[in-house]
């Protein structure tokens, strides 16, 4: 699944480690989500979207699921 996490992270000058720490996960998980290897669970997707003050749809691209 495509996401805007990397773009949002760069815009907010955040490292993967910092984002991971803020949402309570590991850096490796953030990396995997960013490159599309792993799809975040709904609670984690919510935490990430909430961290950037956006909705889940604004961070995660669901177009390939339609």
């Amino acid at each position, binding site marked *: 699944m495509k996401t805007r996490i990397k773009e949002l992270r760069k815009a907010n000058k955040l490292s993967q480690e910092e984002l991971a720490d803020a949402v309570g996960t*590991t850096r490796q998980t953030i990396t995997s989500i960013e490159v599309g290897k*792993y799809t975040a669970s709904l609670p*984690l997707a919510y935490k990430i979207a909430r961290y950037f003050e956006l909705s889940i749809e604004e961070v995660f691209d669901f177009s390939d699921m339609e």
Partner: protein
Amino acid sequence: MQEYRQKLKKEIIFNAIGAALLLAVQTLAWLGIIRPVAAGERFGDYWNGFIAGLGFGIMALMLIGIIIDARALKNEQRLRKLYIKWSDERGRAICDKARSTAANIFLLAMLPITVIGGYFSVTAFFSLLAAELLMAVTTNICKLYYKKTM
């Protein structure tokens, strides 16, 4: 986090009991009060050493576990790091997937091995068959449980 703190405390108790038990067994073996079954046979000494080494290895792992957990309980930052590592959803998904894939491979691979084993040893055949049946029954019990709870 409080729940995880309790989990670590239980883990420390479990590891301490396990390490104490292993130490007691090792001491009894060292004093010659108990001996592994193969002792006295051709490879008795080798077997004694192997069992003792295995026991000390497991004991060392338990002691390391106690140290890691105790240090985390004393330091909030360490506790959070350990908690994140433990609760990380990707890590858990990897473990679950690895376990289920390994179990499937094991079950499939064991079938021909069991049949071939039957030509060489009746004990090996029935041991392998029992292990496979136990695995299959346990898997189905877990399936029923998760069907009801998920």
